[in-house]
């Protein structure tokens, strides 16, 4: 299933887009968590493939990654699990580029395709280094989502939007993942700049912690990615039911915001 066409269709139907992030291999029931967030109204799901040294992640996702790794999660095991997910919406993986280059770009891209994964988000693979991966991903029909930061120049933003597939990931603040008390001022600014530069869906992520913040972000952006807030719930033992409840509350806030 194509990430971009699905998200465009949802946007055209008037929806604010909601993409929860779930760490692959976090708990034996992590695929049930994915099913739960889909049931609660997700438009796509981001599946984290944990890496030992996640420099874009704060303590919450670091802890989840470590827990999954300690339980034996590998890219292979997570993709094997993901393959069993038939959830009717597109899935994307979020991981760090060492795991991709270690496997080999072509092998990794083909493994994603074979597992039914539509997209890939690699936060440490900027535009200047994208070539080898982008060729492999394009050939395997894997959509590479590019990130744009608050301090990205206009010139780079245009290039990022042109190279991005699926959607454009606007990093809402200067910083790493983790919950924040309020939506950063930089969030709506980068969203509106990205919206002006592309017709692709633009989602804001990093630090979107509450349904209220999600609704506020979506006044400009087409939607949000919700990571640490969900992972914190899972680390507390919330399980699929807790995930469902939390994501349903985000869905309700987004649906009410028009």
């Amino acid at each position, binding site marked *: 299933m194509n990430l971009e066409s699905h998200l465009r269709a949802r946007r055209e139907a008037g929806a604010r887009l909601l993409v929860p992030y779930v760490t692959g291999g976090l708990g034996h029931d992590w695929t049930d968590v994915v099913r739960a967030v889909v049931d609660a109204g997700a438009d796509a799901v981001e599946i984290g493939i944990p*890496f*030992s*040294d996640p*420099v*874009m992640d*704060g*303590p919450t996702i*670091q802890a989840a990654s*470590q827990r999954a*790794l300690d339980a034996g999660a*590998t*890219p*292979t095991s997570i993709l094997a699990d993901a393959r069993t997910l038939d959830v009717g919406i597109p899935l994307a993986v979020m991981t*760090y*580029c*060492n*795991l991709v*280059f*270690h*496997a080999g770009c072509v092998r990794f891209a083909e493994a994603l395709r074979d597992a039914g994964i539509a997209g890939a988000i690699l*936060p*440490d*693979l*900027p*535009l*200047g*280094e994208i070539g080898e991966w982008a060729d492999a991903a394009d050939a395997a029909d894997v959509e590479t989502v590019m*990130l*744009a*930061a*608050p*301090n*990205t*120049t206009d010139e*780079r933003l245009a290039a*990022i939007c042109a190279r991005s597939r699926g959607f454009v990931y606007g*990093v809402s*603040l*200067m*910083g*790493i993942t983790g919950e924040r008390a309020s939506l950063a001022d930089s969030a709506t600014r980068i969203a509106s700049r990205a919206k002006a530069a592309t017709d692709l869906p633009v989602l804001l992520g990093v630090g979107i912690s509450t349904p209220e913040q999600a609704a506020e972000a979506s006044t400009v952006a087409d939607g949000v990615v919700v990571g640490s807030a969900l992972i914190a719930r899972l680390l507390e033992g919330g399980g699929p039911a807790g995930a469902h409840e939390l994501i349903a509350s985000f869905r309700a806030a987004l649906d009410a915001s028009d």
Partner: protein
Amino acid sequence: MTDLNVPARGRPVVLGAPGPEPTVRGRFEDFGGQFVPETLIPALEELEREFRAAWASDEFRAEFADLLTSYAGRPTPITECHNLSERLGVRVILKREDLTHTGSHKINNVLGQALLTKRMGKQRVIAETGAGQHGVATATACALFGLDCTVFMGAVDVERQALNVWRMQLLGAEVVPVQSGSRTLKDAVNDALRDWVATVESTHYCIGSVVGPHPYPWIVREFQRVVGDEARAQCLAALGADPDVVVACVGGGSNAIGTFTGFVDGPARLIGVEAGGLGIESGRHGASVARGVPGILHGARSLFLQDEAGQILEAHSISAGLDYPGVGPEHAALAAIGRAEYVSATDDVALEGFRLLSVCEGIVPALEPAHAIGWLARAVGDEVPLGSTVLVTLSGRGDKDAAQVAEILRQRDA
């Protein structure tokens, strides 16, 4: 800086001409690059721009050379080790980075980066540290220049390098114990990068070795090449020729690349000594060239210790400064083209080197260069032919390690 500080000893430092830039996108052969979050790209571009301009400017180079002379105590001498030479059957010459202010080569790089920080108009500096030498050097330069300083240090290293923690605090730096991952140098770099992603507009990340994203491996090499450039001129004056063999320990690889750069276009064999830890076969070591595979960590493609899936493994070394599961990209390139050789010395061999240099020459080395000394002592007659002339970079002095080594030796003797 100030004309009152006329150097009391030695001649002023004369910097060599700038070395070659890495090729497109910061590559040394296939290694290097800029694998970082988008947020850091503008800062790396600014840093590259500023460094290129600074390094081409006579004024900047004069200011740097003056600091190296009047503040850091350069040039450092070379010392011929008569007793050790007699004992080993090779002519051993040390490049004495242990005699610099703060006691290791780290000060060279830090003074250069502090000047760059000023030039970029930033007020806050962050750094990672393993042994604490780079942290101390950074805290020192920040005190000198009136910059705010935060040093990330693995919680394990905070324990084993207590003296340096205290020195950093005395110098006004904040020391943040890092609790993530293996709680050593690799994790300190991770947390420094995480801080930088949030503070990049006002903060300079002063990386301590020839690692990290482009332009760091290039900048740090250029600031450290004074070690090798001086040593080569000194060897030429003393020996009339290059030494046969040039040896340096390799953590991230800054003292080694600084040394090698001075000799790379000559005939000398270049040998980097990595941490062999409990033995290469034990799997608990820091020998990233010997046992690492190509990968991407801390912003660069280089050689890293990894498992089959590509997760980075913990390194192990008796010395906090070599306890890193990777190596700078230029070393990976020198190994790939066969211009430098990489060997390893175990914890025990390093302790032998530590004792040997102390007893023979009255020079207590840091545990990091003790790996180079210990390796050499065992390699003579084998990898290093009898009668060779060998230059070893003594990258730092052993005061910081005295308590740790005393404790280890006490336990062994008990």
